[in-house]
């Protein structure tokens, strides 16, 4: 555990990507199985404990620490795990903590009602930095600025194997990854994974630079599709069953039984998950009701049935068609859907256009009339390349809407921004009062964040827990992708993807926008 704690601390504090990779590589090289594989699982978020939850840790701590002092401390530190590690009042560490694999075994085998006592004794035995790593391990919320991809990059570097190959194998293997390490160290074959059971890393697009890119690209080389406002998914169907993955490779099938139970055939498809009746997509707000739930509610299944608007095919049957060009894959996709007509899958249409001007006009009309987020451009001659390759796929987003809104409330951020008021609720005029229309926590520079933080501290008129109410005097120019009607907000509207475009230190609040301005931007349905 000591070495793992040191690794965690180094990863959390070293800004240099290369040094993080070097530290990981060194750790994997010198740590025996199964500890290194378990560490890899912890770092990539592949390991969770059934009974060890943040709430349990908190309960353990609150048996020893005054709840009010804990709350004040948490508000200050901003990270639950770190608060617990720092506030734990008993320090008696002479006996070393168990090694990582034993610790994980303990977490998995200790009964729910004995866990608090186990955790208390471990916290007391731990040295300060171990205590921090221990809590991070137990809660699973690492927040050490390490992506799973970086961990895999370290595996590639330590072994000289191809990162792409590691990523492909990744979704078919489980901790402690003994066969993976054996293969990386040339002591065994690459783990064999059936393609039908695994996630295939997605091909992603780059934002288009209208001035630079459009001038140099030939419109005849590209196909255009609408950019659908749902969530990107990968549907894997084969002998092994049906899996639905999010863009990051998380299994989300259980939340969408309506899709998983009705689709059939053998293929790996790429598309956008949407909700709506008869393939008519409802606003993202409605889809949101179904996200972040482990299981679907019957009411939601009825009101917001899900479907996938498919735009690419990676495997046709068990044939890997990713090396084919987009136009060939498109033919395969259309043929596959014709052979396997579905109730929950439909085809994303290809938009015909002659030149960029025409497409620009289509894009604008689609945004205004149907609330489309923009269009996607795909090079017709491009294979399906995982990652974000340059020059193959582009997204051309609609121009954002903007509204001048007044800052109403501010809340302290978490993690890296824990000492700053960085989450802002803003509103617009409805008659003589200001009603909240949304919340944003990005779009400003670090320097602006400092200025905002100072302004908020100096202009607070009330506080409720972590929230400060401020004088209604500061105007933000808020950009957002679209506005939708919403019964959940007092103002009756909800903004999609709001961000702070500019801080209008100069503008008096009286000149901020009105609710009518925002309502006018809701697309007619």
């Amino acid at each position: 555990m000591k070495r793992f704690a040191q690794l965690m601390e180094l990863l959390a504090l070293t800004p240099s990507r290369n040094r993080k990779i070097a530290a990981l590589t060194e750790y994997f090289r010198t740590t025996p199985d199964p500890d290194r594989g378990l560490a890899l699982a912890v770092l990539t978020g592949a390991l969770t404990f059934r009974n060890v939850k943040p709430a349990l840790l908190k309960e353990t701590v609150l048996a020893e620490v005054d709840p009010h002092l804990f709350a004040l401390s948490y508000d200050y530190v901003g990270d639950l795990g770190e608060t617990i590690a720092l506030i734990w009042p008993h320090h008696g560490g002479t006996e070393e903590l168990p090694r990582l694999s034993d610790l994980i075994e303990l977490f998995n085998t200790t009964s729910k009602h004995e866990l608090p006592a186990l955790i208390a004794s471990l916290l007391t035995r731990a040295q300060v930095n171990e205590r921090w790593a221990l809590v991070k391990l137990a809660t699973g919320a690492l927040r050490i600025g390490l992506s799973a991809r970086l961990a895999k990059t370290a595996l590639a570097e330590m072994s000289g194997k191809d990162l792409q190959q590691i990523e492909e194998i990744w979704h078919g293997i489980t901790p402690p990854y003994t066969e993976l390490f054996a293969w990386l160290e040339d002591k065994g074959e690459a783990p064999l994974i059936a393609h039908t059971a695994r996630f295939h890393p997605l091909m992603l697009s780059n934002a288009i630079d209208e001035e630079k890119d459009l001038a140099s690209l030939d419109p005849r080389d590209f196909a255009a599709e609408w950019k659908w406002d749902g969530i990107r998914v990968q549907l894997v169907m084969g002998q092994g069953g049906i899996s639905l993955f999010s863009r990051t490779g998380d299994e989300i099938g259980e939340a969408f039984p309506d899709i998983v139970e009705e689709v059939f055939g053998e293929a790996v498809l790429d598309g956008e998950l949407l909700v709506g009746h008869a393939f008519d997509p409802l606003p993202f707000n409605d889809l949101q009701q179904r996200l972040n739930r482990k299981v679907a509610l019957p009411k939601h299944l009825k009101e917001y049935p899900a479907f996938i608007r498919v735009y690419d095919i990676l495997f046709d049957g068990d044939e890997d068609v990713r090396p084919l060009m987009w136009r060939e894959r498109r033919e395969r996709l259309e043929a596959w859907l014709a052979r396997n007509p579905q109730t929950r899958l439909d085809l994303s249409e290809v938009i015909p256009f002659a030149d960029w001007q025409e497409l620009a006009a289509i894009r604008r009309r689609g945004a205004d009339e149907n609330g489309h987020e923009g269009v996607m451009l795909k090079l017709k001659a491009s294979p399906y390349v995982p990652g974000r390759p340059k020059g193959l796929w582009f997204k051309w987003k609609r121009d954002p809407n903007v509204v001048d809104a007044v800052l109403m409330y501010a809340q302290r951020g978490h993690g890296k921004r824990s000492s700053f008021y960085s989450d802002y609720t803003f509103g617009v005029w409805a008659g003589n009062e200001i009603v909240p229309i949304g919340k944003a926590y990005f779009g400003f520079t670090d320097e602006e964040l400092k200025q905002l933080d100072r302004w908020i501290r100096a202009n607070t008129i009330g506080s409720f827990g972590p929230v400060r109410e401020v004088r209604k005097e500061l105007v933000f120019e808020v950009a957002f992708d679209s506005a939708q009607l919403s019964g959940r907000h007092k103002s009756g509207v909800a903004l999609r993807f709001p961000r702070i475009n500019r801080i209008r230190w100069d503008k008096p609040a009286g000149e901020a926008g009105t609710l009518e301005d925002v309502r006018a931007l809701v697309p007619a349905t």
Partner: protein
Amino acid sequence: MNAMTLIDRNLHIRAIDTYVDPTVPRARAIITHGHSDHARSGHGAVLATADTIAVMKTRYGEDCAGSFQAVAFGESVVIDDVTITLHPAGHILGSAQVLIEHKGQRVVVTGDYKRLPDATAQPFELIKCDLLVTEATFGLPVFQHPDPKAETARLLRSVEANAERAHLIGAYPLGKAQRVIRLLRDAGYDAPIYLHGAMVRLCELYEERGVALGDLRLVMETSKAELAGKLAVGPPSALKDVWSRRLPDPVLAMASGWMSVKQRARQSGVELPLIISDHADWNELGETIAETGAGTVWVTHGREDALVYYCRKQGLNAEPLNIQGFEDDGGEGEE
């Protein structure tokens, strides 16, 4: 007159019209120590320890107050029927607590203090009193400072492990910088330590006043290649300054009590946080309050809420002071 009327919430001793650590110019001031949230220029008559007066003159100029009266620790000054005595606070060189006595009533204003040993400051003395005005910089139970020797050892291990890189330690130029240098010396590190220009005058002052700091040189006068594997000390702002490019691929370290919060360290780009504090941590605050026997506690300079709550739970009268001109800036004030 009872203890609560002897001094008011702006730390004004009414009977003798004298303020402790006033934040605006006053005719008469008692200064606990030289940090700028306690010592300001422009007062009429200043009473402080000789060390603190020397610090003030170094930082603000010879004529930063109308007149100075130096008082030794433990030496009482009687003004009308009020007796003032300064006792060591252990915070930095010359830092004092102020004991104010009047007709059997005793008030102690701690200024900033700590109780862990520090070779650069006169060691803290516990003073019994009726009313205690305590600081609360680290007034949350998450602050439990480790042994500074262990932190120094960690720093030296990192220096050893990174022979090709320099280590740049961000440390407040008054007090913290000298303490860190002295901790390194006491741990047996006798190689030259390289300074940012802003540290020089105060390091010289400490040396003049009897705190040996060993071989100190200037980063500005040293080549980049020579600084590999070496230690440099600069003000916290220097960590992000272009100045730091004079050092070869420096490991950025910061010596501060705030460094116990890793998210804080990350946020300021610190790779090697050193939890070395010149303030009492939560446990020391609680012990000190109990040991002074004070029935009333006023809390200032920091996270007042938590400490006031704690005191009240112990059955004490406790109030936060919101001293004008001293505002919580979120924490990273002078240390």
